[in-house]
């Protein structure tokens, strides 16, 4: 009896697979994807998490494919914390970020900064640099001694952000903002440096920095 039943279920399964094979496989894979993504998510804590609100603009684990919305992955925690604070106080201006930062508690600011600092920085594959601009940008970066603050490979350190692999349009917008005095930094060095750069120089720098590898050999 038991054997017969097993046989029947076997037959049913075969028929089902023949009829809905693609569907069943698709469903199985969907379930599998749900399980793995849930597990990865819960490694950071239970659902839902504050960082959910950052995903749309800053991407999965803080890596943005959009050249104008910055990647946060691998940014120094110090830098991130300071930016959230200066957005909240109105010292750094951005119409989207200011009210959002104002609504965060100190604890949330700490956790977000810590979370993004821990995420792996990825190369900016979505950007196609102009070779001439990139070369020109490389010279400017060396001449401007960017590495003195942003680190040997421009991966950021302490209060200084990672520039390597950052979104090209974002980098350019920041250089312009520094040059025009719309963004300031405590030492004033970014303003001083950017002010000496022509708009074409700033564009070249953005092309160079955006195309730099985040895991230099």
């Amino acid at each position, binding site marked *: 009896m038991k054997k017969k039943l097993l046989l029947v279920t076997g037959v049913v399964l075969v028929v089902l697979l023949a009829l809905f094979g693609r*569907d069943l496989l*698709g*469903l*199985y*894979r*969907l*379930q*599998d*994807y*749900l*399980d*793995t*993504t*849930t597990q990865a998510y819960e490694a950071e804590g*239970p*659902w*839902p*998490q*504050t*960082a*959910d*609100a950052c*995903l*749309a*603009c*800053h*991407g*999965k684990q803080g*890596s*943005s*494919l*959009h*050249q*104008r*919305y910055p990647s946060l992955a691998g940014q120094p925690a110090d830098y991130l914390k300071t930016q959230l604070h200066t957005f909240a106080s*109105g010292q750094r201006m951005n*119409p*989207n*970020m*200011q*009210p*959002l930062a*104002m*609504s965060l508690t100190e604890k949330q600011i700490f956790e977000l900064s810590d979370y993004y600092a821990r995420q792996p920085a990825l190369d900016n594959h*979505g950007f196609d640099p102009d070779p001439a601009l990139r070369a020109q940008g490389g010279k400017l970066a060396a001449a401007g001694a960017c590495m003195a603050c942003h680190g040997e490979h421009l991966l950021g350190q302490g209060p200084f952000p990672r520039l390597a692999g950052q*979104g090209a*349009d974002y980098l350019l917008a920041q250089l312009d903002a520094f040059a025009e005095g719309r963004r300031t930094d405590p030492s004033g060095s970014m303003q001083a440096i950017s002010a000496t750069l022509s708009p074409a120089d700033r564009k070249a720098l953005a092309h160079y920095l955006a195309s730099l590898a985040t895991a230099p050999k």
Partner: protein
Amino acid sequence: MAEKPPSNSFDLKRRQLLKFAGATAAVGGLGLHALPASAEGTARVRDSDDGVLDVAIIGAGMAGLTAARDLHNAGCQSFVVLEARNRVGGRVLNHDLGGGQISEAGGQWIGPGQTAVADLARELQIDTFPTYYQGKTVVLGGEGRLEVDLHGTFGTDERIGAKLSELSKVVPSGAPWTSSRVAELDKLSVGEWLARQGIKPEDRSGWDTSLTLTGGVPPARMGLLHFLSMINSASCDYMKLDSIKDSAQGTRFVGGSQLLCTRMAEALGDKLRLACPVREIADWDREVVRLVTDQGEVRARRVIVAIHPALCNQVRFQPALPEGRAALQRAWPAHSPARKTAMVYKRPFWRDKGLNGHTVEVKGQVLWAWDNSPPNGEIGVINAFIVNAMVPSEPAAAQRVLAQIYARSLGDEALNPIGYHDHDWGQADPWSITCVSAIPPGFWSQHGESLRPACGNLIWSGTETAEIWAGYMDGAVRSGHQGALQALASLRQA
């Protein structure tokens, strides 16, 4: 910037006002120039002898244009609409697909209970038609794929929806901060509340997506009180807010939502000034308010400010606004700059396969894609809200990525689109900044009382101020009616 506009801008203003004064001799004195609109023929601005208008409206979105229309219908001739962009519509915009077809880049649907916008459309002789949802929706995730008939819903757990509906009864849509349970409800995010409902892992992504689409942010940062006020707008029925059939995503306008705005604008003639951003609002606490614009100065007794509170932060106020209102503007969330795309095909080929053209991705690049074809399916259009940072910014690259996703959900025909349109509301220009308002926990308790009270001669309008359906086109229309009424009533008293 200069505190005082240079004198040549004053001359420019005089000349413009004289031009607008037209042939029908200015009517002097304070108050309304109440002539029946029909007696005037085409609309023409008329200021009084002193060059001061009765009303200036800032913003030619659905709210500002509705206010203008009401003023005109009430016989008020002494007003202008000042619009920053060189088009009307604000957050509603039609993509021109060619061949007389369109697809909406901004607000597009209306639903049950949205009677103000539905009435306006009828008055403007604009028809509606149902969103196409018949057939199976495709759910994608990783390599996974599932076809499922959701019967015109998003497949949300209706048991949870019913609980939210019940709770929403105590949260008045127009004034959530007056709820009898404000202290308890405004402390929580929707996420914190959902976490207590034991949402299963497979349902979480659905809540993340639906809150992002409806509220502008995932549950973690959405204020529960605010979300309940939105459900309250939907007749206290969650399914009327967050579903398709018989819900707020169920009905579209023939010719697209922007048509309502272009029709209203046509009737305004030269009372509408495009490419005319207001940079400064001065003397709002005096009898005559001065507006400094890129086309010179405009003076008016009343000003209807029909722009989003976050947009008010781009305007200088002299003197500074009262602290309550200023704080509300500073804190108003503006981090929902949606990116909406339209992929165009020769035909809605998916319909032949029993698919409704809707795709939902679990933790993917597409939040929700849907069939946005014209009423008779003459061409096929797939619109989508996408996760901005997970799709390349460059439109051609974005088109390739999305076409491949649609190929997986709808079939290989999807690889051959005949057009693609991409609109990122956060980047396209500085005149929207954000789409819907992701009001966080605690916001209404702190700022609610400052939302509506006029400041001097400034009357606050725009969908964010609506009593019902705030944030929606319906709310914009309601707030426009309200703004016009307030302006007219206060001018009469003067």
